[in-house]
């Protein structure tokens, strides 16, 4: 039983401050973290490993600094880590990343379960899970809050149209775990030391994965940024409670805050 967990290193949004009036983005604290949803996916894999036994493999596509994210995964309890790193990936969009992760998963065959984070905190596109499932020809479940082994299948409690639903998906499958679904563990200090001193992170390039130029061509093209309108300052509302509340409510609605 082998579980592949695709993780991504992201810039911590908490260190990013946006000045709406000047339409500028400031990075106050440049801190790179393992995505919260990805961390939950890893925790789900580790819990599966404890319950039913499995080999947990962490895979990440990213620049050289993504190495830290993989070592954090090793410290948390992953058995092996692979870093998909190549200058050819610098321009990669989500479709390219999904193809690279799919190629890596194929190299790791036999794989019984692929876990990813449902939505990352930086782009929040939530595309990797279904794209990976399609590239591998596997069934998929997204928005998962509980994942349990169930006799050749995974039993998943998922978010579905305002309710919870229980879904069984036969393995192998791709499951996207929602952020906050489980509480990721803190790695033991000795494991953190080992992750840097003893254990290895293997590197695979685009050529190792057999990706062609066509596979590496990004389709989504960045077209600039925009800002929500800066709120007006200092407006005062007076009057009877009912009127004042109504006026305040209208302001909140016009700002799309409620």
């Amino acid at each position, binding site marked *: 039983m082998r579980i592949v967990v695709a993780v991504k290193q992201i810039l911590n949004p908490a260190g*990013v*401050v*946006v000045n*709406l009036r000047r339409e500028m983005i400031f990075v106050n604290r440049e801190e790179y973290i393992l995505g919260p949803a990805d961390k939950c996916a890893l925790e789900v894999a580790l819990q599966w490993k404890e319950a039913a036994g499995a080999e947990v493999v962490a895979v990440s596509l990213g620049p050289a600094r993504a190495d830290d994210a993989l070592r954090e995964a090793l410290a948390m309890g992953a058995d092996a880590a692979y870093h998909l790193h190549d200058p050819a990936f610098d321009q990669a969009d*989500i*479709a390219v990343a*999904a193809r690279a992760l799919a190629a890596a998963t194929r190299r790791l065959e036999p794989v019984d379960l692929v876990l990813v984070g449902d939505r990352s*905190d*930086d*782009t*929040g*596109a*939530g*595309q990797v*899970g*279904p*794209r990976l499932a*399609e*590239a591998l020809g596997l*069934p*998929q479940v*997204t*928005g998962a*809050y509980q994942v349990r082994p169930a006799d050749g299948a995974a039993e998943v409690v998922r*978010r*579905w*149209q305002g*309710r*919870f*639903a*229980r*879904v*069984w*998906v036969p393995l192998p*499958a791709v499951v996207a775990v929602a952020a*906050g679904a489980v509480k990721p563990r803190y790695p033991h200090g000795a494991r953190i030391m080992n992750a840097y001193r003893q254990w290895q992170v293997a590197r695979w390039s685009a050529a190792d994965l057999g990706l062609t130029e066509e596979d590496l061509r990004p*389709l*989504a*093209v*960045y077209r600039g*940024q*925009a800002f*929500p309108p800066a*709120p*007006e*300052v200092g*407006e*005062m*509302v*007076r*009057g*009877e*409670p009912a009127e*004042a*509340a109504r006026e*305040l*409510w209208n302001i*909140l609605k016009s700002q799309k*805050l*409620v």
Partner: protein
Amino acid sequence: MDFSYLETLLEEELGPVEEVGEGYRNVWVLAEAAEGRLAPHTLEVMGKARELADSLGVYLYAVLLGHGVSGLAQGLVAYGADKVLVVDAPALEPYQPEVFCHALATLVEEKRPEILLLSASDLGNDLAPRLAQRLRTGLLSHCLDLAVDMAERLLIGTGPAMGGRYFELYVCPEARPQIATVEPGQFRIPYEDPYRSGELEAVDLPLEGVAGRLTWEEVDAPFAPPPEPLSKARVIVAGGRGMGDAESFRLLGALAEALGGQVAGSRGAVDEGWIDEARQVGVANPPVAPRLYLACGISGSVFHCFGMQDTEFLVAINADPEAPIFKVANVGVVGDAKAIVRELLALARGEG
């Protein structure tokens, strides 16, 4: 004489024969049914899609997939569709990503729309990326706004970046169709026109080749996301001593729930025992940075303001017009916080 060089010359002048997007026309919307009716988030997408189709000068198609959904097709015409493609098959109930993906991909490859919009609902978020990968095209996901660059007939999608702190614009110039998912709640539901006419087409798709592999079971529990820490809440309703008593303070909890946010308090409220210390905003706890912060009966000490200085939109409700919090508030309401909160709660519940 040999004129073959002429052909070569002509080819060079004319450039490449086939352009990107050649043969791709019309705007499509994937319609979702919920409890026997058209889902409200689908209708929101219909309104925006109608605008895009009008500015591009093309037809708006709605695609309805499911079992026993044919009766809803006319409703889509009333909300702006020129044509409705209905695939009504037992294999399409319950939702199976692989079957839906196959059905929609088959329709797209046959009829070639230039734009395909889905709602960023649980279904749309599950299906759209898979479909985009199948069709080898890009996906602009969780769009808050959509526009069209008329020169190149490009769909421009505005999506959230860095957890919604600002927006990023993306396009997909080199592949068709251009697919986007639209975040629910962004657009108005258009007016229903029951006299609008449009064409309905029942499409017979062979779906036997693909089998859905998921087994579904309804769980009788409404979805409630796990509690998030106060520092990550998008809406915070905070109260201070000005709320008067514990019973009035409880109104804030109800208001927070109605607005999908969390309740917090100032030092004063904690001292009165109205709220737990963990929910105090100030220097003692991690700072909060919500999109909306409602300060009710809080005068706004330096420490309190420090704890919430990253708030995007600050509303202060206080009886004292000289309270320091009005100096930093985006909107200040002078009046009895208790009474105003009670009115706000009625408004929030009335519209929720």
